[in-house]
């Protein structure tokens, strides 16, 4: 069997195992809550009989592990349960149709993925170009300026960057909307305009790390003999970096790109709240405030899953870009 395939399968299995354990941790954490689903659902009208009836309905009288596995099974089949807010609404108002957590999350998940995608499309080329330029003109005024600017943006809180951008691009010069108004059936162009300001904020957050890593990876290669050879041949500095240094620097760069995309997943939470962007992060924060357990659980699992997947991708891609691992002796 191909050794790379073996390594990748191993990593995949490890990733699945991690996800399984993480789901267990999440389930355990939530089950430490005092009171359960039944009491929360009934609120003030929780008579012992009613609580017992609902517990029986929802299998809350089963032992811990039985409930964990039935919850896990439901998750795997896409049944994320029904949020407390929806259940409360139904029991008070007698609404007929129930929106499940999956129905609530699906459109928001698409929005968040769109935001992350737009951010990645802007941030990755921008960061790699800046990194190559900073490596090319290292120790110049440009390099130092970029260094200070990226250090500043990496260490500023997301909401500070967001409000600065709002101030200059939405309030003082009304170019972009400061509230991301995304409705059903929005056209692609409108959606892009509404997403641009949050995406620019996230770009500022993630660019710094990727750019610094690109610069460091290239500079660490510049001392190697084959680069010196290329220089002695009389190739221009830009060509030395792009043609000779960059291909060997891809492994750490791709790694840091994937890690930053994973970071994006947590970064979206704050940015979505600032811009009122209807994504999964905002739903999560609202659910945390209302202690809406099924939504919190589902969101946590999705965030953790995306995070683990991207870390896994970082791992696998850095193996793929390393010829020594691809063709072992």
């Amino acid at each position, binding site marked *: 069997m191909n050794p790379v395939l073996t390594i990748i399968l191993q990593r995949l299995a490890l990733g699945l195992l991690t996800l399984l354990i993480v789901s267990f941790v999440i389930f355990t954490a939530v089950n430490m809550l005092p009171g359960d689903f039944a009491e929360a659902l009934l609120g003030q009208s929780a008579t012992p009989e009613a609580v017992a009836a609902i517990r029986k309905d929802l299998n809350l009288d089963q032992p811990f592990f039985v409930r964990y596995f039935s919850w896990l099974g439901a998750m795997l089949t896409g049944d994320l349960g029904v949020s407390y807010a929806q259940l409360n609404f139904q029991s008070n108002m007698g609404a007929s149709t129930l929106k499940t957590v999956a129905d609530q999350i699906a459109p928001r998940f698409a929005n968040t993925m769109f935001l992350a995608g737009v951010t990645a499309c802007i941030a990755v080329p921008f960061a790699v170009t800046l990194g190559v330029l900073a490596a090319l003109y290292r120790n110049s005024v*440009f390099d130092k300026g970029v260094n200070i600017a990226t*250090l500043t943006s990496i260490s500023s809180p997301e909401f500070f960057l967001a409000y600065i951008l709002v101030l200059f691009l939405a309030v*003082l010069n009304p170019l972009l909307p400061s509230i991301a108004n995304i409705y059903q059936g929005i056209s692609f162009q409108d959606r892009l305009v509404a997403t641009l300001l949050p995406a620019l904020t996230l770009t500022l957050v993630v660019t710094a790390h990727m750019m610094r890593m690109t610069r460091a990876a290239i*500079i660490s290669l510049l001392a190697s003999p084959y680069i010196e050879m290329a220089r002695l041949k009389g190739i221009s500095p830009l060509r030395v970096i792009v043609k000779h240094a960059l291909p060997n620097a891809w492994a750490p760069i791709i790694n840091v790109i994937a890690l930053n995309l994973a970071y994006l997943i947590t970064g979206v939470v704050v940015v979505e709240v600032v811009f009122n962007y209807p994504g999964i992060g905002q739903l999560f*924060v609202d659910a*945390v405030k209302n202690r809406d357990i099924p939504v919190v659980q589902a969101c*946590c699992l999705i*965030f953790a899953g995306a995070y683990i997947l991207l870390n896994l991708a970082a791992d696998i891609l850095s193996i793929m870009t390393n010829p020594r691992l691809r063709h072992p002796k």
Partner: protein
Amino acid sequence: MNTLLWIIVALAVVAALGWAFRFAGQMVTGNKPYFRDMPYAVSFGFALGAALFVGGVWLYLQPPANEAGVPRASVVFWRWAVHFLIVAAIAAFIFRLLGRAVGTQASRKIFRQMPLTAAFGILVILIYGFAAVFAGLIAPYGQDQVFSAANVVPGGDPALGGNPDFPLGTDQIGRDILSRLIYGAQNTVGIAFATTLLAFVLGGSLGFLAATLRGWVDQLLSRAVDVLMAIPSLIFSLLLITVASAWVSGTGLTIAMIVIIAVIDATRVFRLARAVGMNIVVMDYIEAAKLRGEGLGYLIFKEILPNATAPLLAEFGLRFCFVFLTISALSFLGLGIQPPLADWGTMVKDLSAFINYAAFAPQIAASPLLAAGAIALLTVAVNFVVDWMLHRSSGLKE
């Protein structure tokens, strides 16, 4: 569309200027190698830098208000930014001169080799530390003292709706913003510092323990840390805060948050402490100490810890920034430091709507940015210092 057209025209002009600059340089210096071999990108960079500088000076010299007396917000904000940068640079420069003149031989030597950014960072950290310790003495009012004059405009000018008693104005329920900013240094920075310290005590001691004992202790701790690190930290802390909020509220929730973030961050510290500890444990002097029959506590605190201080100290700075930003983000979301404690993240959230008035009343928009800027300034300062320390200890010259 008009804006886009302007940008394209401006870039074209700068590109032409860059070419002209190189050409003129070649002509004037008689084709000296510096200009002859200059790539076009470099001359373009010079032209762009010059254009940005001229544009900045031009914007600075614009009148800050039009004939009708309505302030021109972009000019006002630009002036504030320039003033801040100039004051910061001068303060850092004077601070560095002071450091070179006063103190012991060793401390003067450190200041001689210090870049301006690091001097600025140290100065900012000192000021924050001072404000945090003496907040009760500096702040004009209490942090939760409510006055009848709510929504006072910053600036202290009665004609614009200000009040000289409240130089930065009051917030929506009438608390003095200046006092809350100063108390914020005490609460936000103090809580972040305590959390980082707790994370280091936890993660550091467990990491060294794993490195010294090896075997099943190491395996157990490392695998537990692996699992905890597989969940994004902000998401995990939000989940645990949900759980904690069912048990406690108010100040109790703040304490719960400290413990939660400390435990989550301790996993990162554990990784580093274990890796550093592993390298130290194989040294000969550890072997000698073991043969002398020293106990576990002696090995960890007297042999390993002193030799692991340098990397742990740099990590402490970075970790502090992460913890500080996490706590601010949680407070901003309304789930971190709870009232009545004044805190910067909560202040930004409470005052954020004022940004929309920036176009006609710049000083009102400044109040939420001041709190957010206070957070950014400290993390930037710590990062400047850590960057310089890492550069120094690695001995990198390139």
